């Protein structure tokens, strides 16, 4: 090797600078090809749409979370495209069904028992409970650290209730308080909320001393800081209701598919999880006789 060559050194430096400029340019080019595009459009988009109503038991987004998987199941397994149609109130859901805006609607027990006969509605299915039966309960919840332990302790307390059109929203006044020798006037205050989850949130937030919700909702919040201190007698499960004598083939298909629902073996795992939240145990057939006792209770209350 002879002595160093300035030209060689300078050209090496120039190459290094050029390489760095190239690297910087490549690093600053953030462009990446857009993600793969899926083919738009699906055969089911062209199928007839069957709208299914739901009472406003939950907030709209929660309603979709709980009921959309069932629509997905029906659309996938049936010949129609099933879509939810929400309502602002329990009564609106009944009106939608009566008007024919929806082919069927997921009702609450109380609202069906109240309006079913008057609106000419017919219950066809109801969800099973976890024991396989068809009855459910309303429960009185309090914060875990609350001193309340019986219904009688509610005297002078603030109580949060769900919709006036739900069984849970009426159980306290119609059955629980009289049984404990109290009336609604003995309470400090009572407030009805649209959704069961709202009742739980308000109790957990300390705005109310106690609240009443469906037992299934209370179980969802197990471990979140509430405990159950009272439980109602059993009442029939919330029915899927149609207009009486509706001959639409979609009703037949829906009934068939829901009775055949096997949430543990759905083809789509996501569907399995979604269904399990509300309809994890399938459906059973019901009719108007199932709700006669509830209707009588409501009638008696109305005549007092």
């Amino acid at each position, binding site marked *: 090797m002879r002595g*160093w060559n300035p030209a060689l050194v300078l050209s090496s430096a120039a190459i*290094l600078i050029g390489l760095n400029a190239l690297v910087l340019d490549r690093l600053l080019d953030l462009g990446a090809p857009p993600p793969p595009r899926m083919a738009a459009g699906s055969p089911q988009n062209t199928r007839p749409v069957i709208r299914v109503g739901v009472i406003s038991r939950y907030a709209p987004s929660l309603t979709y979370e709980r009921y*959309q998987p069932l*629509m997905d199941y029906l659309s996938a397994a049936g010949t129609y495209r099933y879509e939810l149609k929400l309502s602002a109130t329990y009564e609106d859901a009944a009106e939608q069904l009566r008007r024919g805006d929806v082919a069927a609607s997921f009702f609450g027990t109380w609202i069906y028992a109240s309006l079913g006969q008057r609106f000419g509605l017919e219950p066809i299915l109801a969800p099973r409970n976890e024991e396989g039966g068809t009855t459910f309960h309303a429960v009185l919840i309090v914060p875990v650290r609350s001193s309340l332990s019986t219904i009688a302790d509610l005297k002078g307390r603030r109580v949060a209730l769900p919709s006036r059109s739900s069984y849970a929203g009426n159980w306290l006044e119609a059955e629980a308080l009289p049984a404990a020798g109290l009336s609604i006037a003995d309470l400090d205050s009572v407030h009805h909320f649209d959704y069961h989850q709202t009742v739980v949130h308000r109790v957990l937030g300390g705005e109310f001393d106690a609240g009443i919700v469906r037992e299934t909702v209370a179980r969802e919040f197990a471990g979140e800081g509430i405990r159950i201190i009272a439980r109602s007698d059993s009442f029939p499960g919330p029915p899927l209701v149609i207009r009486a004598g509706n001959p639409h083939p979609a009703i037949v298909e829906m009934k068939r598919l829901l009775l055949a629902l096997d949430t543990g073996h759905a083809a789509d795992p996501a569907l399995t999880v979604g269904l399990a939240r509300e309809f994890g145990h399938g459906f059973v057939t019901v009719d108007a006789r199932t709700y006669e006792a509830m209707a009588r209770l409501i009638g008696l209350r109305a005549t007092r």
Partner: protein
Amino acid sequence: MIARLLPADSLRTRILLTTSGAITLFMMVISWGILAQWRQTLLAKEQQHAIAVTRAFSVTVTEAMIFERNDLAQSEGFLDNYIAGFMRENPRLRYIAIVGPAGEKVARSLQGPRAWSELVPAGILAAPSPTTWFRRHDGLGWVEVAYCPLATGHKRWGSLVVGIEAESVRREITRIFFLLLGLVVSVTGVMILLLWILLGRLLGSLRDLVGAMDTLDLEGSDLPALPDRRDEIGVLFRHFHDMHDRVRRSRLELINAQSQIYHAERLAAIGRLASGIAHELNNPINGVRNCIYAIRHDFENREKNLTYLQMMDEGMEQAGSVVSKLLGYARKQQPVRAPVAMNEVVLAVSRLLAFDIERKGLTLDLDLQRDLPEVTGDSQLLQEVLMNLLLNGMDAVGERGHIRVRTWARDDGRVGVEVVDRGKGIAEADLPHIFDPFFTTKGTGEGTGLGLSISLGIVQAHGGSIDVDSRVGEGTTFTLALPVGGAA
């Protein structure tokens, strides 16, 4: 300045440039790798952030769309207000667009490209899950586009597309790039400086060693003191010291061997002179014998006997002189350095060879310059050199040949002796080897092959030289040149 710090032929410069080049390249490659990894992490973080922001906003948008599609409330303008509010709360947002499940326009921010095709690339709306990508917009620069499907289960409400500025990402990448570049340059600079210092120290040690080698005197006693080090340089110093001792011992052994060879060569020369010497001795011995015979024959003649005794004494003196000259030539003496007159050397040798020259019928012409300056050296050794040259000349010319010896002095301070013979000459192929030890063209027993080799060694030890000019068939000229005053 640079040339002074980094001389072109310097070992330090070469090592420094080569090493610094390799270090720079290595550091560059490492920093590029780090930068690429870091960039990937930064972009992944940005994408996660974009997806989180878009998902969060998608909850609100989905809720509003549910209300709108189900006629649950007076929802006119909900989405426009949500978009405006979200844009205000997130200054990095450049635009928001919401489209329906079939790609129909639903709502958009006032900011961003006016064309929907710029806001929402066709086909992307069917992508199944949230995703992001980067694209460059005219006027907006680089934007990270985050896409989120609006869906509940299989229910598709539409799609949300959010554009988030990405120029800050590029600025961050640029900042880190130059930070790393600065780091690389600094580290490389520090390493080069350290290397420069270390090389300076290392090469300084080597220079010390070279200095010691320059002052090396094999005839002297000790080496200059070298630093006592425990590292590799110290090993080098110690090995150099050991080598110096070995060379000194070898030199002493060589001197002894050369001395013995000189002596053997002198004895060999004496052997060659033996017949002449015998004749030189025989003449006075015969004269003495004749005188003894005459004395016996006329023992009473005192006057004659005194004359015979005088003649016997002269004869014995002549014989003694011959023996003395021979002993003087053959005696192994320690080399001396004294003024030497080269003319005297020539005469002494010619006297030793006189009988051989006469016996062979040779002609020896002496052309001796007057007032020849003296040289400093060993007269005995220089006689040996001239003896070797003359004996070779005599061998070369054969019977009745002619040899000329000329002495001269030049202005450059050198004194010379030329031995010119008109003999058979030396073959051109042999010329490069005539000073090699044991090289001879003579027959077995006629020469040792050491004469010229020894002669050259002697002359070089005197700071002189021997040149030879020969042509086959024409003769040979040996020129012995010595500095006036001796070797420097």
